[in-house]
């Protein structure tokens, strides 16, 4: 069990993380971009048009990974919030700070592609069902995390307030989701039925899987890069950082 403790303490150290993470950023960027190019070319160029949705199905190769990733980022932020409130690890706080705006952008991408896909497929750009509403509210939650941090002047106070808000938010996401689900099952608009996926066919599944993996890797790279920027900002006066800058 010793290695768990060591890893825990090492990841908690901005210095260890900063000096070791540059190859990871580059690696994740290259690998993620490669996968996205492969998956998107495959999905846009080589997959047959879907029987009911026609060519608009291709938007889903961007939409589904983005929507999935948005939720994953929020869960990561909430875990970081818990870690920060309990153990006061600076890195957890910096992760929240770095990931929140990125999560916002990814959520907006998911919403925008969803609307573009919905207009030809559902016949309407917006439906008040569980997934659309909870994704929209997710965007507001990300926005709130950024806004709250900006509003509180003292950084240490802001960090703890944001961490608490992230935790409160993660309790609410399932409640919001289920409440909307129950609500819409009572008044299901018929237009949704057209878009309802029959179990997804393998031709669509493979490029989708490649793109999901690509999105995860690429955005992980972006988050780590943003995290490195936060470390530089906060440790600006530290000796190890000066030494590192001089050396490289």
């Amino acid at each position, binding site marked *: 069990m010793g290695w768990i403790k060591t890893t825990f303490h090492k990841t908690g150290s901005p210095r260890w993380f900063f000096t070791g993470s540059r190859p990871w950023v580059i690696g994740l960027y290259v690998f993620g971009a490669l996968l996205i190019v492969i998956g998107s070319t495959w999905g846009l160029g080589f997959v047959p048009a879907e029987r009911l949705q026609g060519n608009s199905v291709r938007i889903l190769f961007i939409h589904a990974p983005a929507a999935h990733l948005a939720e994953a980022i929020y869960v990561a932020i909430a875990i970081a919030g818990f870690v920060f409130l309990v153990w006061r690890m600076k890195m957890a706080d910096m992760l929240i700070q770095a990931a929140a705006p990125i999560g916002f952008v990814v959520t907006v991408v998911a919403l925008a592609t969803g609307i573009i896909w919905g207009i030809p497929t559902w016949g309407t750009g917006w439906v008040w069902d569980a997934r659309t*509403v909870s994704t929209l*509210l997710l965007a*507001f*939650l990300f*926005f*709130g995390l950024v*806004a*709250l941090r900006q*509003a*509180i*002047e003292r950084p240490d*106070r802001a960090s*703890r*307030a944001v961490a*608490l*808000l992230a935790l*409160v*938010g993660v*309790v*609410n996401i399932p*409640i*919001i989701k289920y*409440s*909307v689900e*129950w*609500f819409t099952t*009572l008044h299901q608009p018929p237009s949704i039925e057209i878009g309802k996926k029959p179990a997804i066919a393998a031709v669509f599944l493979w490029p989708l899987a490649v793109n999901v993996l690509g999105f995860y890797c690429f955005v992980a790279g972006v988050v780590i890069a943003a995290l490195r920027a936060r470390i530089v900002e906060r440790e600006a006066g530290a000796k190890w950082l000066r030494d590192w800058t001089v050396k490289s």
Partner: protein
Amino acid sequence: MRLFITQFRRDLVLAVRSRSDAANPLVFFVLATVLLGLGTGSELVPGVIWVLALFANVLAVEGVFRRDHEDGTLEQLLIHAQPLFPAVVGKLAAHWALSGLPVAVLSPVAAIMLTGTTTGIGVLVLTLCIGTPALTLLGAIGSALTVATGRGGLLVAILVLPFYVPVLIFGAGASTAAMLGDPVAFQLLALSALLAACLTAAPFAVGKALAISQEY
């Protein structure tokens, strides 16, 4: 329990003595109702009333800790109130008694003004009585997080409105169903469950947020 009663009475007396502060959310609710009555038709009424009650709530709850923060009472509360839970609940109960409750009491008038009928009004009042305390409890978290910044306002609205959504869905859902003569038991139960969850969990989050804002 004694802590609850003391805190409840103190906040009630303070609010009653500065009347315009306490009346603001109520006046806003009436004013917005009139505007909507002039601007829209009648089918959406229960939902509209619920949304207005929600806005009135967020406007009111935004300042619930402000004066206590400014004159230092909040610090004293955090130092002496052990446990903090009943004091927070007492404070919010007093706040609700002068913001959510009057809105619920006045809502039949608004409903009759807007629809001209009395169908489903009992359910509307009931949903507001169950739902608005849940809103106050949730909103207090946002208010507590921002109390030390001196600029709550819109920020509190942005932080807490997403959390208000489930309450709105079941509250407005039940009221609309009642007006159309449909069964409402499920929504009422779900709304009560939300209130129970908020009442047991939110005061802890509020206490923690207050502690962060006052550095304890």
